[in-house]
């Protein structure tokens, strides 16, 4: 260690070094803050000229984009929320912690897959296939989940020891694969015998539903894939933060596991789950590449899952590099980006506040575990 005499002689220098270091840290932090503020200020400043534009043209352009953005987010959440929350319930409440710690990173890997790869698969591979095989695709959406229930029934009847429920996530994979294959095999037969023609033909000629190759359903699935892990991770955290004592109490009072979940765990973790969904919504609203590649980018206002949309993020990505700086389009697009920024920032802040509140509440409930 340093000898006392050296310590004394080095004292002023040490003091100075310390101050300098602190100052650098403070300045670094201030620079970071300034940079963050600069983003907001820049966006605000450059979208000010929008105020001078005629209102109808702005609203007309922005309504389409806003509608498209919300539609994409909605269909994403429609797919992502059930999957993510259900997965969180399973890992948080039914799995031993060790196994949970293994599965969680695996699910988080889904989020790491770059959007451009997901978009490519969805837009170039998935969308044309779905268009040609709509009945099979719908069957794939419906049958595997139903088959999971079937698996449960079979399991209850046979009660095999080798396949415990807490490993169901593993051995359900081959089951789902088999069921998916079954759906692919059976759907065209059903289509043939029940309808006699292509399902799309029935949709378009008899029901008047138009079908676009790259549509909201494709976007929902693809973006759902990207959003699921985010929602899952936060919901899983919230659910596993629910003190065990609460649930044990409920079970002691005669509730089964499912009732405990509905009556105790979900209400206790409710705000956390809410914030997880909010975060997912924020991500879905801002995702660019997936929408750009998997939606038709048509400036449509329609609610049909089989029609495309144009979102703010995709419009900015396609049009901004080509807009002359300081032109009307440029300012309008920057304004759209500002809307996106504010929206996600607010949604995320709300989610964060809710999450922190919940956390402290649960800590109190659990007696400060």
């Amino acid at each position: 260690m340093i000898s006392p005499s050296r310590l004394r002689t080095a004292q002023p220098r040490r003091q100075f070094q310390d101050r300098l270091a602190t100052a650098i840290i403070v300045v670094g932090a201030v620079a970071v803050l300034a940079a963050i503020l600069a983003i907001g200020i820049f966006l605000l400043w450059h979208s000010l000229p929008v105020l001078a534009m005629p209102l109808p043209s702005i609203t007309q352009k922005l309504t389409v984009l806003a509608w498209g953005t919300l539609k994409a987010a909605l269909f994403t959440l429609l797919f992502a929320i059930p999957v993510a929350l259900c997965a969180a319930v399973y890992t948080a409440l039914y799995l031993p912690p060790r196994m949970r710690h293994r599965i969680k990173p695996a699910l988080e890997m889904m989020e790491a897959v770059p959007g451009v790869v997901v978009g490519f698969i969805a837009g170039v591979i998935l969308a044309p296939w779905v268009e040609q095989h709509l009945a099979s695709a719908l069957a794939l959406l419906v049958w595997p989940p139903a088959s999971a229930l079937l698996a449960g029934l079979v399991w209850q009847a046979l009660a095999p020891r080798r396949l415990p429920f807490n490993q169901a996530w593993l051995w359900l994979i081959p089951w789902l694969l088999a069921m998916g294959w079954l759906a692919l095999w059976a759907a065209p037969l059903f289509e043939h015998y029940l309808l006699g023609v292509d399902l799309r033909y029935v949709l378009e000629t008899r029901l008047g539903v138009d079908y676009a190759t790259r549509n909201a359903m494709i976007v929902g699935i693809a973006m759902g894939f990207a959003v699921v892990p985010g929602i899952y991770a936060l919901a899983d955290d919230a659910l596993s933060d629910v003190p065990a004592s609460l649930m044990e109490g409920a079970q002691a009072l005669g509730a089964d596991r499912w009732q405990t979940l509905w009556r105790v765990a979900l209400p206790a973790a409710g705000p956390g789950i809410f914030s997880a969904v909010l975060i997912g919504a924020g991500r879905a609203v801002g995702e660019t590449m997936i929408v750009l590649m998997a939606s038709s980018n048509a400036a449509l206002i329609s609610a049909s899952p089989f029609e495309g949309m144009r979102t703010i993020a995709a419009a900015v990505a396609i049009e901004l590099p080509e807009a002359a700086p300081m032109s009307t389009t440029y300012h309008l697009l920057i304004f759209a980006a500002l809307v996106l920024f504010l929206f996600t920032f607010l949604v995320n802040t709300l989610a964060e506040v809710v999450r922190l509140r919940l956390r402290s509440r649960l800590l109190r409930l659990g007696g400060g575990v």
Partner: protein
Amino acid sequence: MNRHATPPRLIARLAAGSIALAIAFAIAFVSLFASTFFTTPVVANTAENTTVRGTLGAVGSDTMAGLMLRWGEALAQRHPDVTLQFQAGGSANAASALIAGTARLGPMSRPMTTAEKQRFTHRYGYPPLELKVARDALVVVVHRHNPLRALTRRQLDAIFSTTRRCGAEQPILRWKDLATTQDWPFGRITLHGRNLASGTHALFERRALCGGEFRRDISVHPGSAAVVAAVGESPGAMGYAGYHHLSAAVRSLSLYNAAGKAVAPSRAAIQHGDYPLSRSLYLYVNAPPDAALPPAEQALLRLIFSPRGQQIAQAAGFVALPESRRQQQDRW
């Protein structure tokens, strides 16, 4: 932990910190400056056998992206020190980049509008140098199994536009509205097209829609290849794209010309302009009239108008200039 900082101390810290930061920025700036000062392309003199070097910056048409890249590759083979940096984004982008000065070469799949030329002239005092470098055409494509073979201009307009300026009375929305496709494919004609900034979009609007407006439910793709791929995957689709993007998955339609004759987009028909939607591809150069072009640019132009350059255009899927036109421009 000690977390009390009295105000004077804070000020001292801030001052010290900002000095440190200023130094850091100064270093950064010097290195930035050095970095480009020493790399501004050193252009050797233009004598025949000396090496030509330099960087060519081009911004513009997606349609011509493949062509420009191939020309760039061939140029790099001939002059290893010349590199072509190309950024695709649409023809409108070429004009604005030329005017803003972010590029000196602007490949465009349509001629510059008078407004764009005026803005350029206003900024530089001279008009941009306009070169026709190859022939191309817009083709209307349908799925390879689609029975449709030919369209009149009115029908085309009625399918793609809301305004129907070419004179059609009814919009054509569904396949059953056309005589040859009564039975199949069914449903709506799903339309595929390009984004707003592309020259393909602008040209199609002007020539096929008689200057009218596109329908709003057209799927917008960021590239022509994506349009063709989308149409090739979907029996009920129709789209427009550059001729060289044609693939085996789609069929190009013949169009009726002014004489009432259906003309297929063949090479000869495009080269001589018989096919109604044929066009020239342009390269705009920011060339002051009183000064010679930089050698790297000269080398590129020499390549483009050489027989080999035109062969490369054919290989890229375009149509070569008529021989007389090529010789006329081969003067670099």
